[in-house]
């Protein structure tokens, strides 16, 4: 079974530039999550999709971050414009459906450095 795919794996940009991350979840998984993990901390949920609808985006900085999941499969997360404090690993995860009974499968992450 193919895992969660993410690209790019690494990205370096200057502050005020824009960046986009892509995620392809495990086939058949209805729920998709985007997390931000700053060095030394646990993953922080940014947004959760159930199919192509948003379940929770309460921790997404909506003035600069946006995410979409068209057709309920792939998803993109965009930052525009980036700030220095956005330097982190961005993790995508998927699960069969929403709910705490279902384990999440994580992708390898995208390491973003903002200079």
């Amino acid at each position, binding site marked *: 079974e193919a895992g969660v795919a993410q690209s790019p794996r690494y990205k370096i940009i200057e502050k005020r530039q824009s960046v986009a991350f892509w995620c392809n979840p495990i086939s058949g998984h209805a729920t998709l999550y985007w997390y931000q993990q700053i060095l030394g901390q646990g993953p922080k949920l940014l947004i959760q999709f159930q199919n192509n609808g948003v379940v929770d985006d309460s921790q997404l900085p909506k003035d600069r971050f946006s995410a979409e999941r068209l057709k309920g499969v792939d998803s993109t997360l965009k930052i525009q414009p980036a700030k220095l404090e956005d330097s982190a690993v961005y*993790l995508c995860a998927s699960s069969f459906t929403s709910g705490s009974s279902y384990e999440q499968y*994580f992708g390898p992450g995208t390491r973003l450095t903002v200079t």
Partner: protein
Amino acid sequence: SQQGEEDPQALSIQEGENATMNCSYKTSINNLQWYRQNSGRGLVHLILIRSNEREKHSGRLRVTLDTSKKSSSLLITASRAADTASYFCATDDEGGSYIPTFGRGTSLIVHP
């Protein structure tokens, strides 16, 4: 949503020893999950324990749940260098939808 808090923040042991780490939470839960993160394999689900379970085993892993104390422990027996990683618990709220929340984790180093 609520945040599980892992304790200790860091743990250093010798290969073959047992490692115990704890997770505390604040409100009632339906389920609690443990995850491991290392540089090689990323973040991986280890085990899920439901609120009506007190103990669960998976290979060298043993998880306990004490709902009266709102805490869980993860025991790794006969540790190996490959167990070196950060360990996180993720909790939900009994009444609400599942918004997964991770703590800062326990950093485990197993010396060969």
